[in-house]
């Protein structure tokens, strides 16, 4: 059993998906430290701005929710540039030391996603730190940004790396990200039109409301949801293998820190919609159903296919939702409870009743990215039903970027700044990306890849099978010649230190002796 976490020592983005807390705007930028001493001095000035993971009080009590948050993380080169001792540097895991570019062939970053096509900011060396600002609105973000820019120019010897591709092919010294707006209102959607940001793991000590556990934790032998071990997501705590995750020395450098993957994923919206339109003509169902069969969730409201596997079921679900919402809005407590129970099923599900994938295809994005105990194809075969998943979970912390143009196309800038956190980039993110997104042996689907983010190339064999109910008289549906819907435009691997470790790095007192 893990002790309660020191939430005031852990950076806030680890425990909180800021989007969910009403921060729809963000700016990410990257620092280069030209000398270790200036770098440390700059960091020292930035530390008071860093947001920790303490829960925000609803009213009155402190800490209240701020208008803006700030977090910071470092690449291996960055830690080197800040003068960390070699022995500490040696303790970092191999993939982190290599960085994302060197892992391109593991991640499927080939063809248009190959590092030579990434935004200029990623070309060459010199990405040392990532800084994020999340704000309730763009003004809050801008204000915080100018404060940080002031600190940077005051200390000297630190620069903001330019070269993020923005609208109309301009190059910017930062990457802005924003929730997608419809009619002036924030939506939880990304640019292909899917509701996103629903599924995220629940772990011991994360400070989240326990009612969020079902569907987000791990499954024990009795099939009940339990929180995942803290050490899956935060270093210095016991993980699912009952040990401390691999981490550098000294203990205080790693304790309460974690690793982060940052990827700028461009969405080819024209390619996506053309593909959907052309395949929809032969598909037995609506265009929305086809889109849902790619992701595993209905695009408009994120309802999982396990709950509503076809157009008829979706219409009934929508009707039920509408009528419960109406009654609940009028103060009907019973309807409100029913509505909550229904909404809980958005996340609290497994694929146990859908072994054949006739509801949610076995190769659908969410079924690949979080297998929810479905790899235990024979009941009772494994130590626990989700044994093969519990060490492969991702805390997703991304936001969409770009968009807002009148006519979005493949050439315009839009996509997702995908960020995910975990104690081992190799075991969690890289494994999922390589084995479950770009390969399918674990699903008995050969080399088929994810429709949305797989490194498909439009060949006959780049395909997705929409399985059917056996003996239903219907054939499975084949989506072949899948084009590259999403392209990587840059990214790297980062270490997010605890507040204590940030202070130690800034003071230059990391000593593994």
């Amino acid at each position, binding site marked *: 059993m893990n002790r309660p976490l020191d939430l005031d020592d852990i950076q806030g983005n680890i425990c909180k998906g800021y989007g969910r807390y009403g921060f729809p705007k963000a700016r990410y930028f990257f620092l280069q430290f030209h000398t270790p001493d200036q770098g440390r001095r700059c960091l020292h000035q930035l530390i008071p701005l860093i947001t920790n993971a303490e829960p925000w009080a609803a009213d009155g009590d402190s800490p209240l929710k701020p208008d803006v948050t700030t977090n910071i993380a470092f690449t291996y080169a960055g830690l080197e540039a800040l003068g960390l001792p070699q022995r500490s540097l040696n303790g970092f895991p191999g993939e982190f030391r290599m960085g994302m570019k060197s892992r391109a062939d593991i991640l499927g970053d080939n063809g248009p996603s190959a590092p030579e096509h990434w935004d200029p900011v990623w070309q060459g060396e010199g990405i040392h730190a990532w800084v994020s600002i999340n704000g309730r609105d763009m003004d809050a973000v801008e204000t915080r940004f100018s404060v940080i820019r002031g600190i940077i120019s005051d200390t000297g010897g630190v620069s903001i790396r330019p070269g993020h591709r923005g609208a109309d092919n301009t190059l910017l010294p930062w990457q802005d990200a924003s929730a997608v707006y419809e009619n002036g209102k924030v939506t939880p959607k990304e640019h292909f039109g899917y509701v996103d940001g629903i599924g995220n793991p629940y772990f011991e000590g994360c400070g989240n409301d326990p009612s969020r556990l079902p569907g987000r934790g791990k499954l024990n032998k009795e099939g009940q949801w339990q929180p995942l071990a803290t050490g899956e997501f935060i270093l210095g705590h016991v993980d699912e*293998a009952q040990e401390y995750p691999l981490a550098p020395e000294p203990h205080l450098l790693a304790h309460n820190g974690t690793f982060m993957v940052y990827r700028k994923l461009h969405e080819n919206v024209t390619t996506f919609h053309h593909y959907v339109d052309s395949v929809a003509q032969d598909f037995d169902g609506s265009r929305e159903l086809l889109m849902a069969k790619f992701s595993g969730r209905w695009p408009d409201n994120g309802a999982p296919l396990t709950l509503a596997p076809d157009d008829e079921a979706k219409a009934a679900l929508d009707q039920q939702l509408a009528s419960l919402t109406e009654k609940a809005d009028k103060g009907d407590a019973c309807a409100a409870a029913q509505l909550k129970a229904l909404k809980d099923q958005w996340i609290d599900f497994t694929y146990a009743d859908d072994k054949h994938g006739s509801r949610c295809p076995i190769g659908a994005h969410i079924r690949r990215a979080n297998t929810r105990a479905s790899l235990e194809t024979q009941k009772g*075969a494994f130590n626990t039903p989700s044994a093969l998943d519990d060490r492969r979970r991702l805390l997703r912390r991304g936001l969409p970027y770009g968009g807002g143009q009148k006519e979005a196309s493949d050439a315009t800038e839009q996509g997702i700044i995908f960020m995910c956190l975990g104690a081992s980039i190799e*075991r969690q993110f890289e494994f999922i990306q390589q084995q479950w997104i770009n390969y399918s042996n674990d*699903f008995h689907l050969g080399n*088929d890849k994810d429709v949305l983010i797989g490194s498909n190339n439009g060949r006959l064999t780049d395909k997705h*099978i929409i399985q059917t109910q*056996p003996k*239903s008289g219907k054939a499975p549906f084949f989506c072949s010649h899948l084009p590259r819907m999403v392209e990587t435009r840059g990214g790297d691997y980062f270490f997010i230190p605890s507040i204590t470790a940030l202070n130690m790095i800034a003071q230059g007192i990391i000593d593994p002796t």
Partner: protein
Amino acid sequence: MSNVAGKAYGMNVLTPLRWWTALWQKLIFWVVVKTFPYFLKGLLTLSLIHYARWTIINRWSFPRLDKTQPKETLTYSYMLFESNFNGSWDQYIDSFSFAIPGGLDMFWRWNIKYPKSIPLHDFYHYIRFNQIECDHYYNAYPLASANDVKSAKRLTGNLRSFADSLTDNMTDEAFMDAYRQFLADNQHALGSMGDSPLMSTSHQLVQHHKQVNTAHEKQPEEEA
């Protein structure tokens, strides 16, 4: 030397046992396999494993290549674990240890200095320390995993039966119904076939060097 061929990884692990526990363990293995096959359910469900075999070699029955090879006097008997699986070493050991820690402990528990399969890194070190690299490892179907081969075999058989079931006087509609049914019955055996995902950046380097070597070897011939 490489433990990798196509989509497969070959693993040999030789671990010492006291000679009397070896005898005892032989008996246990036999009883388990005969009477409690459910112990093996986990192993069979881990579909990345093509093959796994545990053999106990008594200290007096170590094979010799030839009668002229002197007999060794061994202190211990040994357990030889051989496995072919699809994926990298870490992926295999991870899945093994997450999914069936109890089963692994049952196989190895009497081995000298076996640390148990959880916590994971002690188990990692135990396997690595006792692993014997493959001198030669051949794979007849480098593009296929064990699952791919099983799917292909099932599909071929079913396609033959389907073809046999068709008659000349079948209507188009009847054929279409039968074909749809055939596809539905085989929807889990229709994955695409393709290259192995990269097992590691080290393996990638070896493959690159091999290509360079081949190109280099070819050159003088072309010149001649």
